[in-house]
């Protein structure tokens, strides 16, 4: 492999790619605009959902006349009660005049609410709480009437809740979305660029032209590989910076994210290193798969599983899987789990080293296989 030749191939490929509008949109516009907009929208949505004032949910319908005890509880909770037949309450609920309505059959209260919006779930919680309070008040009353001390039956144990997590769940969830977006951006860019440089080149008839030059297979493969990796790194960094920028700006404006711990300089550098490693890994794989395809379309079909593979780690995270020494050696999964740790500033440098080493080994294995592929007539002239 000759560096000057590889450099020429890189230059040619990047020039070729950036002049293709579709690839350019995928590489720059999508990570720069689309993902941050989506991310910002999600943050704003989450914030507004959490900031819905519970006091705004207070319009309940009752298909029975609450007794004095229940009435007092409702009054204390500042509930605007509407009493009427069930059909009328149902109609008012559907028109949005009621947050929920309650019926009573014998000793069974039924709460009618909707899960289609967050207010509905809040209404359910509030209505349940009101009925629980009423139930307890009735029980206390019965015990008192029978000369029994209610305290001997109730509050035998008390429960206290203490959240011991470092960050609030919402912040962690939003931070956890960044690696998913970034790795998806990287995967899509790598796949697009790799297809263009391999199957696309074959389809356009320029591969044969390239083969006529005094180049070794390694020059061509490494040139294409580095060019794909560069495009992927640019795309990942653009995506990361713009998404993190949105996070930074919104964390100062949205109440729910005010306590968010932002990325340290060390974590930022580690994230960039990881993007480079992942870009190289996914680029090598995408080149290998796309090289086997006879046409652009066939390459698009055959590289589709890569997008799904890059989502597997997301499911693992949802299952609560954490990075361990053994998982740090597993390609794809390790990068994703490590990126999660980096973003939450809890990276273990030993794991980082294992992830880096295993990814580099995997990249070399894949590139060796691609170089071998490029000796096959079936691959080059099919």
């Amino acid at each position, binding site marked *: 492999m000759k560096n000057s030749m590889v450099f020429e191939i890189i230059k040619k490929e990047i020039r070729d790619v950036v002049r293709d509008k579709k690839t350019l949109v995928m590489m720059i516009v999508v990570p720069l605009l689309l993902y941050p907009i989506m991310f910002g929208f999600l943050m704003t949505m989450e914030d507004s959902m959490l900031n819905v004032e519970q006091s705004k949910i207070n319009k309940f319908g009752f298909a029975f006349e609450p007794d004095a005890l229940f009435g007092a509880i409702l009054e204390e909770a500042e509930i605007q009660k509407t009493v009427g037949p069930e059909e009328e309450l149902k109609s008012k609920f559907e028109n949005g005049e009621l947050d929920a309505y309650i019926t009573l059959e014998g000793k069974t209260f039924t709460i009618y609410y909707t899960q289609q919006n967050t207010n509905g779930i809040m209404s359910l919680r509030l209505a349940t709480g009101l009925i629980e309070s009423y139930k307890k008040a009735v029980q206390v009353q019965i015990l008192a009437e029978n000369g029994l001390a209610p305290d001997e039956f109730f509050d035998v144990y008390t429960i206290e809740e203490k959240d011991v997590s470092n960050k609030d769940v919402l912040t962690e969830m939003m931070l956890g979305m960044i690696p998913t977006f970034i790795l998806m951006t990287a995967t899509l860019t790598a796949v697009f660029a790799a297809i263009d440089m391999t199957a696309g080149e074959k389809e356009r008839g320029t591969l044969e032209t390239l083969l006529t030059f*005094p180049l070794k297979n390694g020059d061509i493969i490494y040139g294409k590989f580095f060019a794909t990796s560069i495009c992927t790194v640019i795309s990942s960094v653009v995506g990361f910076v713009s998404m993190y920028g949105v996070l930074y700006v919104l964390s100062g404006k949205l109440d729910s994210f005010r306590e968010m711990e932002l990325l340290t300089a060390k974590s930022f550098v580690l994230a960039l290193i990881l993007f480079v490693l992942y870009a190289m890994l996914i680029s090598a794989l995408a080149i290998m798969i796309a090289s086997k395809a006879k046409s652009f379309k066939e390459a698009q079909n055959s590289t589709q599983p890569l997008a799904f593979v890059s989502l597997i780690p997301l499911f693992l995270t949802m299952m609560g899987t954490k990075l361990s020494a053994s998982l740090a050696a597993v390609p794809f999964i390790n990068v994703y789990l490590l990126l999660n740790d980096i973003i939450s500033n809890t990276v273990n440098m030993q794991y980082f080293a294992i992830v880096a080493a295993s990814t580099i080994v995997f990249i070399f294995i894949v590139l060796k296989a691609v170089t071998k592929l490029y000796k096959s*007539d079936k691959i080059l002239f099919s």
Partner: protein
Amino acid sequence: MIEAKELRKQFTRQDKHKKKTAFYAVDGVSFQTEPGQVLGILGANGAGKTTLLRMLAGIMEQTSGSVEVDGQNYKQNAIEIKRKIGFLSGNTKLYNRLTPHELIQMCGKLYGIKRSVVDRREQEILKLLNLEELQNARIGNLSTGQTQRVGIARLLVHDPKYYILDEATTGLDVISSQIILDFIKDEKQNGKTILYSTHYMEEAENICDRVLMINHGKVIETGAPQRIKELTNTTNLRDAFFRLIGGVSNEE
């Protein structure tokens, strides 16, 4: 000199029952080129011309036999041999997103030519092919004739000793074809050796000093066009070819 010795290339094909059968696309072809001559490789579609020329240009490996260029073979020194060859075929397309200037510069660098030499040659080539005004236009926006001239410019950058041109005029209109044919005549006058494959027999008759007729991957006759016509008692190479293959073409 380019010398092919007992050159063979085996492929497998699959029938509709997915049964694979091996066959030779090129089967025991031997010949030598003469300096300053145009050697025509003639045959119908599917005769094995493209496979033969790909092996000669070092972009496809032979199953058996050997190719030697000035006494060197591809296994020992592929890079050095490729520097001596300019390969153009209907399949070797140009980079539509690059400009002629960028393409020429890239070719120069890939052939290991010094920047100053590439710059000088670029100016000469662009002038020669009347491409000066188009040097910064995207190749994809050029007409077929202009693209053909850029294709030739690519070949001239490294001033190759040998040209291998595979069906270079196929699918081109009369004017675009003439650009290629004029190029062949000029380079022949410059003392270059040219291997030129075509299935246009009349074209070959006009520009080739010798021809190699192949059918089903095998050489069926070789020699000067006049000699082959006399041998087959025909007045043109087309009739000679049909006489040699027994009156049945591959396409039939």
